[in-house]
């Protein structure tokens, strides 16, 4: 498998427009994401985060403009992407073992019949990497939310891609699982480009090298500069920051707060 240098763009988007039923969702998006970057896609609900993700995965086609993922069209580079969807959308009663879920990451390597030994080994390695070595035989529906999330990451790792994309991985998992998740992502970021979608930006700056704000327009910020503009981009429009210092005068909060 060819490895890309850190200077190469993992994702290149040029003048992209996308509308759904006449409503513009994304407008004149130009974006370069470098290999080995770790970035967080944030923005208000309905701002176009999921649409951007689907365009990068090639599940949607842009109306105008161009997308290149790992130097190819999204359809062609699809198999080199490890994708982690939200676990909450799965049928909670579906009878499938954890190992079989992880093996789906190797689905492109078989036409019919059983998986090869190398596929099963890769799946087991991915499970071990996510700290789930003993869970292979368990039912996907029996394990906890945090574990399911990690199983889905293991599935993406079993695919041996170069780009890891996670959709809302922190939704519905507890704080301890979340901490563990970012520990693992930090390790994976040494060899993979990591891209994560979230609406929860509180933690964003801890792990990520860049933040991409999506609200019809798309803007990339390095995390070092957390300015008022960036915060406005994240939440969409002017907002008032809530101050927790509570130095209230009898007339209420001081008037010169940050807006």
């Amino acid at each position, binding site marked *: 498998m060819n490895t890309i240098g850190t200077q190469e763009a993992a994702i290149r988007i040029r003048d992209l427009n996308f509308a759904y039923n006449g409503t513009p969702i994304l407008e004149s998006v130009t974006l370069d994401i470098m290999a080995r970057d770790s970035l967080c896609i944030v923005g208000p609900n309905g701002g176009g985060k999921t649409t951007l993700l689907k365009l990068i995965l090639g599940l949607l086609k842009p109306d105008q403009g161009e997308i290149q993922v790992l130097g190819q069209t999204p359809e062609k580079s699809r198999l080199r992407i490890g994708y982690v969807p939200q676990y909450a959308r799965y049928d909670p009663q*579906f*009878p*499938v073992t954890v190992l079989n879920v992880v093996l789906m990451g190797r689905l492109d390597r078989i036409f019919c*019949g059983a998986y090869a030994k190398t596929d099963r080994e890769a799946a087991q390695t991915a499970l071990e990497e996510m700290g789930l070595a003993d869970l292979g035989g368990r039912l996907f529906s029996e394990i906890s939310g945090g574990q399911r999330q990690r199983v889905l990451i293991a599935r993406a790792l079993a695919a041996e891609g170069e780009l890891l994309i996670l959709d809302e991985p922190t939704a519905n998992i507890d704080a301890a699982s979340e901490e563990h998740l970012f520990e693992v992502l930090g390790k994976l970021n040494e060899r993979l480009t990591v891209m994560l979608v979230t609406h929860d930006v509180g933690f964003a700056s801890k792990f990520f090298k860049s933040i991409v704000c999506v609200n019809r327009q798309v803007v990339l910020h390095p995390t070092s500069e957390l300015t008022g503009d960036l915060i406005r981009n994240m939440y969409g429009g002017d907002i008032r920051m809530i101050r927790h210092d509570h130095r209230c005068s009898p007339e209420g909060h001081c008037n010169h707060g940050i807006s």
Partner: protein
Amino acid sequence: MEFLNALADPAIPFLRYAFGAGILASLAFGIIGTYVVARRITYIAGAIAHCVLGGIGAGLYCQHKLGITWFGPLSGAIVAALLAAIIIGLVSLHASQREDTAIGALWAIGMAVGLLFIAKTPGYIEPMSYLFGNILLISKFDLWMVLVLDTLVVGIATLFYHKFLAVCFDEEYARLRGVRTDLYYLLLLCLTALTVVLLVRVVGIVMVIALLTLPAAVASNFAKGLWQMMVLATLFCIAFIASGLAISYSNDLPSGPTIIIIAGFAYLAASVFQHFRKNRGR
């Protein structure tokens, strides 16, 4: 037991044929029923089953009115089932809204076409026997037909097990792994259609859907993984058909409803059992 003697009795071959067809078809029912229950497409399978009547009617009409001897009710049923599967499959893949309306319409239209054909076919034909099953109609030829369809369905379903599993569990992800999910979904519906045709004669169009889904639903309470669910569903299906035929024979009851009632009770019992087991675990 009386039923076992009757099975061996050369004077009543139809009972043997019905029993054989039921046991053989159980394999396809267990496997495809598991996919249908896991993918939650019972409603779609129901529509396909009812469209079969259109094909049966067309087959009867061709045979009796037009004198086309090679195109009978069974061929008609197979063609109609496959056609319905493809149309419904395309509707459910491409119409994002009001999918249920379109499927419901096809469900009724298929039956209407069948009843019109039967009405215009010379000689008296009892639509009841197709709607609710009649084991007296089963011939040795049907048994061979079941065997051929069975081999086809089981062969394809086993060969592409992992593809079907992924398409049922997470269609979007399967697509991202380079699987032509639309084709596999249509193939799954076509296999469902063929499976439905297998037992229309034994339990009838209206009730065949219960036999497709209830054994799998009962099995899902005990199964760990899709494979186990398929094996268990097959065993349950065999048990329901065998006991249903035995009880219906010794009590002079129609076979189809007897089989379905047994399956229904088993499903109810399994659900209640599961409910209490879960509550105790809490």
